[in-house]
């Protein structure tokens, strides 16, 4: 077993372990931290895969952005130390069964598939990515780039409208949902 | 003669009604429109005879064929033969009388409003569906008009009806839509098994009739088409919308429902199921016969136990429409002629019956037999009409019912198999049961001493009601006393259908 392999398995275990903990721990703040670790693990995996640009993006956007956002919102919405309520047992069991079965099924299919590893050289350096990102011709990703920019604009507008505290805080209305009948 | 007029005029009338103000205008426009349509039907009849006399022997005349949805091979194709002609006449009679009967619009909505505009609009619009259906020579057009005639009924019953009207309207609409759903499957199956020679399919009835659809396909789709149309035509056991629907409907709608709507089914069974799938018609013939015999007798016996006048007529319609299906099931030319005659006859007769019941109900506000009695004394015209309708219903010679039933009976005699005869004899037995319930009804409701004193103040029919009833009676008597013209009219049409059936290699 080479070092690379050992590192990989370590990273893999780290990602999965942290991810699992993030999904099971009862304290929301801890959960967020485990998620953070898991995402860092993924970033490590990218490093391991020698896709450094992605690894950087991963850290910047996820660790620096999304997780921070999540943690902020956690602070905004509740006490971090509070234990989260557990899901009902039946839901948990059925979820576990479904997930395990789904995983077994999916992975068995993946496992059985004979992926032919290509021998060509993989080159993902930043300059290539940069060139393609703004290229409008073949192999260019200028259009998706523009689309994403609009998406970000829209998301921004949406966030502002929704999260902006409205000046006149109307009293909380009662539920207006009518019960269906038959 | 441009056959499109047959659809356009009622359509224009119904639209014109929407722009009218006040009951007076509405009903005048409706009346004029319906009267023009009746005249037009007669003109058409005349033109039809002329054309035939001039030696036009093509199966359908006044054909008009334009591509509608060319990519799907859907055409707007219309044309008439004798059978359609008879049905058009029937429809125009009933629409006009329906308008006349609704003259005073006595049935108000639950909100207490008259909504006369809407009422006449729907009534006339229903006519558009019926006319279109009878002249369609393209399965799509046919289906279009078939469904067109469902929802106006729902609204007519639901808004202006009486009793458990919403339930009945819903039941009627759902069952009829169920029927047309089956029809759709049948049509689609038929469509994809046609071959015009260049690999495309067709909806054209005339073309399909010329092709030989594979027997297996016919066997598969015949039941869909037949049961589907059968639901409209009160095929046992899919008849249960009939009693409720008829009894809750306002008078004109009942007339329409029994007089025309149920004929859509019979006509469809004949024109689509039997004509286009003759092998399957042979194959399933015995089932049709058994079921229709059940309907005839069972309907009659069920009628015997009813106490509501409309229920009586509704159940008796089940029984009478059984003859239509019986005639179709027997598959001989005479029987087919009989089936069509029965359609016409039953249409007129039952419309008359419902008209009378409506008039009685308007005056006495009851349809329960036990609460009626002795009406002949206070309203001789209505009562006499009622009796005439009853007598026609029980197959009295001189009225149309007899002619039609006898033709069906005689038709079965052209089949050599004993089975057909026994079935016919079983069906014959209904004439006694019919007599029992008709006379029971007449005896209780019309004759006898006056049931309630306040009835003595009731007025007899107004001019519009008299006209309505007289028109229908004229129709009934014209068929009953001189039936040969109808026979001549229908005969060639039935022959066309028979020629398809006769080519069948009989499969048992």
């Amino acid at each position, binding site marked *: 077993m080479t070092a690379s392999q050992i590192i990989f398995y370590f990273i893999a275990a780290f990602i999965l372990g942290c*991810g699992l903990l993030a999904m099971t721990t009862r304290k929301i703040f801890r959960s967020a931290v485990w998620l953070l670790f898991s995402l860092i693990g993924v970033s490590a995996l990218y490093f391991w895969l020698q896709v450094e640009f*992605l690894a950087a993006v991963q850290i910047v956007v996820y660790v620096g952005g999304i997780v921070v956002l999540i943690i902020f*919102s956690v602070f905004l919405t509740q006490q971090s130390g509070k234990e989260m*309520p557990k899901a009902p047992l039946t839901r948990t069991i059925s979820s576990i069964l479904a*997930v395990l079965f789904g995983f077994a099924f999916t992975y068995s299919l993946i496992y059985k598939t004979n992926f032919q590893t290509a021998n060509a050289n993989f080159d993902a350096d930043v300059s290539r*990515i940069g060139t393609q990102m703004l290229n409008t011709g073949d192999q260019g990703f200028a259009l998706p780039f523009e689309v994403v920019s609009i*998406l970000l604009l829209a998301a921004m507008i949406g966030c502002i409208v929704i999260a902006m505290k409205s000046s006149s805080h109307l009293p909380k209305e009662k539920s207006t949902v009518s019960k269906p009948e038959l | 003669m441009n056959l499109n007029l047959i659809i356009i005029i009622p359509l224009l009338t119904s639209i014109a009604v929407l722009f009218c103000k006040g009951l007076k205008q509405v009903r005048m426009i409706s009346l004029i429109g319906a009267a023009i349509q009746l005249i037009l039907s007669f003109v058409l009849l005349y033109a039809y005879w002329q054309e035939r006399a001039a030696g036009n022997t093509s199966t359908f005349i006044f054909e008009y064929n334009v591509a509608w949805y060319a990519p799907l091979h859907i055409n707007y194709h219309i044309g008439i033969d004798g059978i359609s002609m008879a049905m058009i006449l029937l429809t125009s009679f009933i629409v006009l009388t329906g308008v006349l009967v609704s003259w005073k619009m006595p049935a108000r909505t639950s909100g207490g409003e008259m909504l006369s505009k809407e009422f006449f609009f729907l009534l006339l619009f229903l006519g558009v569906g019926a006319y279109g259906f009878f002249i369609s020579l393209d399965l799509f057009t046919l289906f279009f008009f078939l469904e067109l005639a469902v929802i106006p009924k729902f609204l007519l019953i639901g808004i202006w009806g009486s009793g458990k009207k919403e339930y009945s309207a819903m039941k009627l609409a759902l069952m009829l839509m169920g029927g047309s759903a089956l029809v759709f499957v049948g049509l689609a199956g038929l469509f994809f098994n046609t071959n015009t020679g260049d690999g495309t399919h067709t909806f054209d009835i005339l073309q399909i009739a010329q092709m030989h659809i594979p027997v297996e396909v016919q066997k598969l789709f015949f039941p869909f088409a037949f049961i589907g149309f059968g639901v409209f035509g009160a095929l046992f056991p899919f008849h249960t919308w009939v009693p409720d629907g008829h009894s809750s409907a306002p008078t004109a709608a009942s007339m329409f429902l029994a007089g025309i709507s149920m004929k859509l089914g019979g006509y469809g069974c004949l024109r689509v199921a039997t004509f286009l799938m003759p092998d399957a018609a042979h194959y399933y013939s015995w089932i049709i016969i058994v079921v229709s015999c059940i309907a005839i007798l069972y309907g009659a016996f069920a009628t015997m136990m009813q106490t509501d006048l409309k229920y009586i007529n509704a159940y008796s319609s089940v029984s009478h429409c059984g003859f239509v299906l019986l005639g179709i099931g027997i598959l001989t030319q005479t029987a087919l002629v009989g089936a069509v005659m029965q359609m016409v006859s039953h249409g007129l007769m039952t419309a008359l019956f419902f008209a009378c019941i409506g008039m009685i109900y308007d005056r006495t506000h009851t349809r329960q037999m036990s609460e009626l009695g002795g009406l002949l004394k206070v309203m001789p015209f209505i009562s006499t009409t009622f009796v005439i309708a009853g007598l026609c219903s029980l197959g009295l010679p001189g009225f149309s019912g007899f002619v039609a039933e006898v033709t069906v009976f005689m038709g079965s005699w052209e089949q050599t198999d004993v089975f057909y005869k026994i079935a016919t004899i079983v069906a014959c037995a209904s004439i006694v049961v019919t007599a029992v319930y008709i006379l029971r009804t007449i005896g209780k409701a019309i004759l006898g001493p006056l049931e309630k004193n306040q009835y003595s103040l009731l007025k007899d029919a107004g001019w519009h009601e008299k006209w309505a009833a007289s028109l229908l009676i004229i129709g009934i008597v014209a068929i009953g006393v001189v039936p040969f013209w109808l026979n001549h009219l229908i005969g060639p049409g039935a022959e066309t259908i028979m020629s398809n059936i006769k080519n069948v290699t009989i499969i048992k």
Partner: protein
Amino acid sequence: MNGIPISHILFVSTALFFIGIYGMFTRRNLITMLMAIELMLNSVNINFVVFNKYLWPGKLDGVFFTIFIITIAAAEAAVAIAIIINLYRNHQSIDVEDAVELKH
């Protein structure tokens, strides 16, 4: 490459994906549900990168897909959090089971 068979890496990503799904099913807190979704998206990212690197190294489709997924994940998270905060304002709770007025 590196002596690690591709199926092992795919095991990691698939497992991570299903861990995310598990979290989606069981975490009642809206924010943790959002985290679960992030995990799922990350697993997909790993897939893309691995496939791109191991199987189809000629073009950078997988890597670019990953980049866009990351971007969109950010936008999605932002909007989701805005909605969650608004929900919290209205419901005083971010428990998913508390927001079940609309049902049946």
